[in-house]
């Protein structure tokens, strides 16, 4: 007989416990705010590509620019030769996306 008495009590307790967890979870969700995307501070060091990767990348980037030569040294890309002004942004966009330490633009811009 004792078991029959305790069983409903145990069920009631466990049910109460569950509902308590649920409401706590709901509160957590409600309190979560979306952080705005305008945070720009980052203290992680800038990732610089290896010279091998940069050399491959620079070869691809300059392929369509026959008047342009590029060298890579310790993360720095140096561009020399001639280029038309309207083609310069395309080349610079490609080169600067390779994660170089620096881009030295010694090109003669025509």
């Amino acid at each position, binding site marked *: 007989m004792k078991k029959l008495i305790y069983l409903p009590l145990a069920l009631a307790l466990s049910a109460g416990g569950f509902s308590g967890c649920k409401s706590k979870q709901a509160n957590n969700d409600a309190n979560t705010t979306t952080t705005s*995307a305008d945070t720009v501070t*980052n203290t992680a060091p800038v990732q610089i590509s290896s010279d091998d990767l940069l050399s491959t990348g620079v070869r691809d980037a300059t392929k369509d620019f026959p008047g342009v030569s590029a060298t890579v040294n310790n993360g720095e890309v140096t561009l020399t030769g001639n280029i038309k002004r309207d083609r310069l942004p395309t080349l610079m966009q*490609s080169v600067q*996306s390779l994660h170089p330490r620096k881009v030295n633009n010694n090109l003669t811009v025509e």
Partner: protein
Amino acid sequence: MALEQKYQELINAAKTSEVQNLQVREQNNVLYIDGEANSGAVKDNLWNIYNKIDPDFKGGDLVLNINVKAASGSKAKVITKESNLNIRKGPGTEQPTVGKAAHNEIVTVLNQTNEQWWLIKTNGGVEGYAYSQYLTPA
């Protein structure tokens, strides 16, 4: 901090045009600005501001790396100056070409393999890697 001031207009424009994962870092007298734009127009605008502040990009004090996001399955337009765009077997110019996409042709982006190369498919069924600099979300 001096470089952030020099390029303040560019940084502000990146923020207002909702560039994602925007990072602005100054290290050894070079400013690094990284982020992802939702359109080619946003990227072009930022580069125009860069060119205005530092004419012909001669300063060597900024590395601007703004990539344009393109979802898998989305369309992209070929923006070569006038020539065809090579489609290659793998991501690199040493890879053999498997086909070409015409200037202004619309292709399907299968994935953005990396910042330089996207896997694309033409309406004609040619599938391979193309240089992302010559593609923009359509």
